[in-house]
């Protein structure tokens, strides 16, 4: 019995050794099921052809599930992923915690100085780059040129909120299921709160004053929310309170929205002839303002990062450098056309004459450049971030606040009540977290 066991163990050990010797290193990559990432997954073979000793294992998940998974994993140092897709909200917080591997030592050929300064700044903590941007986005107005002309209006490059409201009401034709404006209404810190917070900035509102006192009881927030809800009631689609990015994208692509103010990255989807019924009738403009010096556009970059403690840092760096490189952009362009390359990360892309022909290229770059996460509001604030506040407590608070806003949009709660609730719950949580005394 003993010998048999011994032989068996030996055989197993030998097999394992052989297996490790023969097998390539496998990187497990967690990513969002957005179009650009799915395209990246589709190009796996291009990467492994260049790096035969690395294999890629994809975990593609819906955004909220992905965030829950990677957050649990990094906070507990679970080590299930070698590369994580995270956003500009997570990078500064996680980087400061020492949870991410610094990327300042990427090879010369990567040309880190080519990254757009606004985007790179959002991913850098104390001079160390902690994630490489896969695609960057701001927000802008996308509108139907045909419906705008029909309404007898002309969209300026930098519209005001008053013009947007007027145009939205003029374009609405409920009988034909055309709604003047589609905006996010689905509760979530990355959904309606992102849009409304960015809008609030242009109305002169802010989340906190310099001493972290919540500001939802101020007039600026009341103006913002009343404007948003009146506009959506008059010119929005039915069921707007459950519409997020994807729902609005589907509405716009099927010709049901006159205007849509959302992520710049959506431009390539709404102009794609395969998916969009209105691809040849879309115009772009900067996010609106109220003449107060701030526009309602945000800044976000889905980025690739390596959790500290990973055993495959070298391979992971190779992959990240490949997926966010100039060569990757050229590779996608050669396969899918310039309109489909991941936008908003590199200066060289916007200097490329081929890319300049893409209808939304200039407006995307202008929108990104118009965003400044370090000074997001009219009045001073103690935080960084335009459509979010880069503190760990924000996700929880903002999701609860988003539910209040969504309820107000659905009509199940008055605007004043929603704001009072938002104020009360934010004060509570900030007191609990020790930012303010009570």
């Amino acid at each position, binding site marked *: 019995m003993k010998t048999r066991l011994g032989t068996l163990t030996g055989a197993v050990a030998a097999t394992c050794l052989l297996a490790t010797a023969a097998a390539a290193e496998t990187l497990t990559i967690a990513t969002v*099921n957005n179009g650009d990432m799915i395209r990246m997954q589709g190009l796996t073979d291009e990467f492994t052809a260049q790096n035969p000793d690395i294999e890629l294992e994809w*975990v593609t998940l819906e955004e909220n599930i992905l965030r829950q998974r990677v957050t649990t994993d990094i906070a507990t140092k679970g080590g299930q992923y070698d590369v994580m897709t995270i956003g500009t909200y997570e990078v500064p917080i996680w980087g400061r915690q020492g949870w991410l591997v610094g990327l300042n030592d990427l090879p010369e050929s990567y040309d880190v100085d080519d990254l757009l300064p606004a985007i790179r700044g959002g991913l850098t903590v104390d001079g160390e780059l902690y994630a490489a941007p896969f695609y960057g986005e701001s927000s802008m107005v996308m509108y139907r040129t045909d419906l705008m002309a029909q309404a007898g209006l002309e969209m300026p490059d930098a519209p005001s909120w008053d013009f947007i409201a007027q145009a939205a009401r003029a374009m609405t034709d409920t009988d034909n299921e055309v709604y003047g404006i589609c905006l996010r209404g689905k509760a979530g810190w990355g959904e309606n709160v992102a849009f409304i917070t960015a809008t609030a900035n242009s109305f002169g509102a802010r989340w906190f004053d310099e001493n972290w006192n919540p500001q939802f009881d101020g007039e600026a927030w009341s103006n913002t929310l009343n404007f948003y809800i009146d506009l959506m009631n008059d010119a929005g689609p039915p069921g707007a309170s459950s519409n997020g990015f994807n729902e609005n994208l589907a509405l716009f692509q099927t010709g049901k929205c006159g205007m849509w103010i959302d992520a710049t990255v959506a431009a390539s989807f709404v102009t794609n002839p395969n998916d969009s019924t209105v691809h040849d009738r879309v115009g772009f403009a900067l996010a609106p303002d109220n003449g107060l010096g701030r526009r309602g556009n945000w800044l976000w970059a889905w980025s690739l990062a390596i959790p500290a403690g990973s055993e495959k840092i070298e391979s992971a760096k190779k992959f990240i450098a490949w997926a966010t490189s100039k060569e990757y952009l050229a590779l996608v362009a050669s396969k899918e056309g310039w309109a489909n390359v991941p936008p908003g990360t590199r200066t060289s892309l916007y200097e490329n004459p081929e890319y300049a022909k893409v209808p939304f290229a200039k407006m995307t770059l202008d929108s990104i450049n118009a965003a400044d996460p370090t000074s997001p509001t009219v009045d001073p604030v103690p935080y960084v971030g335009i459509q979010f506040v880069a503190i760990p407590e924000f996700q929880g608070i903002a999701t609860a606040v988003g539910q209040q806003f969504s309820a107000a949009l659905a009509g199940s709660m008055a605007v004043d009540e929603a704001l009072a609730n938002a104020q009360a719950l934010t004060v509570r949580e900030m007191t609990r977290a020790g930012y303010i005394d009570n």
Partner: protein
Amino acid sequence: MATQHSRVNARLLISPAVLLLLGWMLIPLGLTVYFSLLRYNLLMPGMEQWAGLDNYRYFLTDPAFFAALSNTLLLVGGVLVITIVGGVSLALLLDQLFWGRGIVRVLVIAPFFIMPTVSALVWKNMFMNPVSGLFAHAAKGLGLEPFDFLAHAPLFSIVLIVSWQWLPFATLILLTALQSLDSEQLEASEMDGANYRNRFLFIVMPHLSDPDPDDLPAVDLCRDPGDHERRPRHGFDQPDLPDLCPIAPAVRRGRRGGRRSRRDHPGQRRRDLPDADDRQESGRLRGREDQDMARNVTPTRKAVVTIVAWTIGLAIFFPILWTILTSFKTEAEAIASPPSFVLFDWTVENYAIVQERSNYFRHFLNSVIISIGSTALGLVIAIPAAWSMAFVPTKRTKHVLMWMLSTKMLPPVGVLVPIYLIFRDAGLLDTQVGLVIVLTLINLPIIVWMLYTYFREIPVDILEAARMDGATLRSEIVHILAPMAVPGIASTLLLNIILAWNEAFWTLNLTAAKAAPLTAFIAAYSSPEGLFYAKLSAASTLAIAPILIMGWFSQRQLVRGLTFGAVK
């Protein structure tokens, strides 16, 4: 009477199940209680400090807490009402004679096999969406304003979705109970001139409502402390066991006809001798088909029932059918208004895309391994435990069983972090072994309890006779108990495979790539950018097809296991 020897054995047999569940409960629970007294934010490590009862204070003074509590109660209450009323009506309908009864039964049961994640996605997007959902199309077709379900009646919508999912199970159990109803009694009352309404009110209802088959849908939650009637059985003192869940009474009734209906006929009260009961019982069951034929049904009535039953059956099955149909459409066609039912260009491109993007086969294989593995392991642990509880009960048996079921009430989110930490340290994250262990532990109470109810129906005389003939404990189990218990074990096995297959919390949170089952596969399609109804439908169809097919093929076995208990 159980001997000293068998008592010791019994304790040995039950201990693996008890120790495992004790560990499963105490370790995470202890850690959770510990965390609850700290100021602990996962995103701010190193900030942990003693917070006393601060977290509880904030929790209880949170206005959202009571809103959530009342929403939960409304949800549970709403689902219970719909599943009870709907379940009784459906069970009564399916118990009638009509053409195609087997097919309709299969249609009605189908939603029970659907992954909750799939059913939520399908309902939310393809039916309730106020612009491109099917209900919106129907409303527009009728010239009405589309109703925005999730914005204006969110709780109602969720109740509807959950009820749709659990109605089949309630129907299944109630049908089982109904078919165990003594039809001689019904015939007698019919001859005595009782009309249909009276028969329903005075015979069927007391039978079904004894002692509350209603909370069936919430198998995990049911804890009805009713029925404290002492029942000395099989010659030794049986401890009181509250009927925690209603499958038990259904099974027991299946064996011996409803207690209350027995009470209605005082003359039958003495039938407490199991043997007489059993004989009559098996005779009755054998005669079931003959009785069906003997029931006088006019052709008109049969035709009406057929139409009604088929309409309802198709309506319940429709969401699944619609998903399957949509999976063969192009994305544009999937949200087209008005929608086309079958007259579209059928395409398999969605399946091709899904197959290209994810490794379906690996997810499928993981699902198979995890659900079968956890069920097999669960049975190995549960069979001895249930055996000893059923045959060598002690004063504590009832409490042990209650406690086992109570471990099901731990909210998984509450123990996620402790479990995640334990799994990380044990190297079990993203392994099939890890998932098999977790799913075994969460389903073990149900397995033990189902088996216990079956085993209790096995006449102990046979075992005692075997023991006198010198059978060892082992041969007692292998040669006598097992063959008699096979139907019960089989239906436990089937039910548990379904539960494990559809489990979507642990399977999603403890896996990454290597051990990810079909629940993770679906999460990649749940709400991407752009149009996704057709791809979501294709992925959903692929995820539910295996268990749906298995469920359909085995539904007879499932019903039989529930109906007949363990013994012929």
